[in-house]
């Protein structure tokens, strides 16, 4: 249960980095919007450090790479290790990562009032956690 609860929360989190002004070209923007995010079961994570990458759409503007640390079955740290997005110099992705970490302990099913969209960073996190997942 908590796994998908968190996955839902994570998706609600997408709103956070909406301020990043990275979506001027509509084609790229549209592509970003249709990115699928798969549910990660947070209850089945193997300890370790994982690298996640996202290719970054048509012009690779949003390419980014992150490092996710799982210890005692929990996500304890997420670091941005590389990004082609000029907006990554500010700290908005950090807020997004914090939220993913925090989401594990939040006892909520979903969040009201968190809108906007920013999926590319989460795409890489998901990619990393996919590797951490065990059956």
């Amino acid at each position, binding site marked *: 249960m908590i796994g*998908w609860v968190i996955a839902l929360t994570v*998706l*609600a989190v*997408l709103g956070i980095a909406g301020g990043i002004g990275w979506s001027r070209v509509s084609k790229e923007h549209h592509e970003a919007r249709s990115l699928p995010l798969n549910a990660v079961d947070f209850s089945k994570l193997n300890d370790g450090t994982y690298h996640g990458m996202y290719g970054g759409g048509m012009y690779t503007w949003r390419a980014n790479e992150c490092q996710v640390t799982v210890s005692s079955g929990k996500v304890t740290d997420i670091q941005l290790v590389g990004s082609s997005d000029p907006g990554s110099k500010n700290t908005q992705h950090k807020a997004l990562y914090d*939220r993913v970490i925090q989401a594990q302990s939040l*006892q909520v*099913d979903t969040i*009201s*009032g968190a809108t906007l969209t920013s999926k590319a960073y989460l795409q890489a996190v998901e990619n990393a956690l996919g590797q951490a997942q065990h059956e």
Partner: protein
Amino acid sequence: MENRLVSQMTHCAMDTVMTHKAFGLNAEDSLESVHREIARIEKLLSRFLPDSEISRVNGSAGTKSEKVSRETYDVLSDAVEFSRCLPGCFDMTIAPLVTLWRAAKESLAQPDSSSIKQVLPLVNYRDLILDPWEMTAGLGNVGQSVDLGGIGKGFAGDRIQEVLKGFDISSACSNLGGHVVTLGAKPDGSLWHVGIQHPRQETGLIGSVSVVNQTLVTSGDYQRCFTDSQGKRHHHILNPRTGYPAESKLISVSIVSDKSLVADALSTVLFVAGMEKGLEFLKSFPQTEAILVDDDLQVFVTQGLRYRFRADKGIAVTILD
């Protein structure tokens, strides 16, 4: 077998990200239907889709009325009702103003007062002509335009519940970009816990509300906002009377209601109306409750949520009479 009992879907629609989770034998099929239904509604109501019914009405503004479907007609009628009940707080002909402020957001500069003055007379719900016999809708003046942004997701929420029920789903939760719709309780019988975004802390919540079969919608000044070159912040909830973002001292309004459309419209209405006038208006909606946050970050919760709202650490709450 177990996999078929629960299904989850994420997609983009209505300019936001939507997630749905359903439990039951037909979970997967039900969510595919939900997805199609949302796309169908968007094709009726979005003013950004050139072929939508609303776009046709807008395109013929000042010229003629257009035939619309029963559903579009009903949503427009509901919107008129909300505009009428509390004048100056809600107006679905606000599109010209929204367009002005959207451009402002792009250029990071507040629109000049003369352009606001110029479009303000175009914002008037009384100019929407609805003919129930012919089932037509029309706008009285050239340049007028309907925007159902304050009510469209609400309508979609109500429709989602109907679609799910048609598949015998008794437990589901949809998040339409922050607009949360629940069907029944969770499969284990417990309540859904819906967190409410903290209006000033990106990663925080003000608390959570337990809901069953209800919608929770939050309107806040922190969504879709921008800071202009003078450093002044402008948010997206416009006061149709002044033409500027509403300044009612409320920075976040959440509504819990059985009806998703009502919750959607009321969250905007109360945000613009402010606490006193808004709460008075809320009384005419039974089974509808609110959580308000003012600009001092004080949280106010209506009586009916007394035992269902749980504040996050460090959040002070006043229960309203």
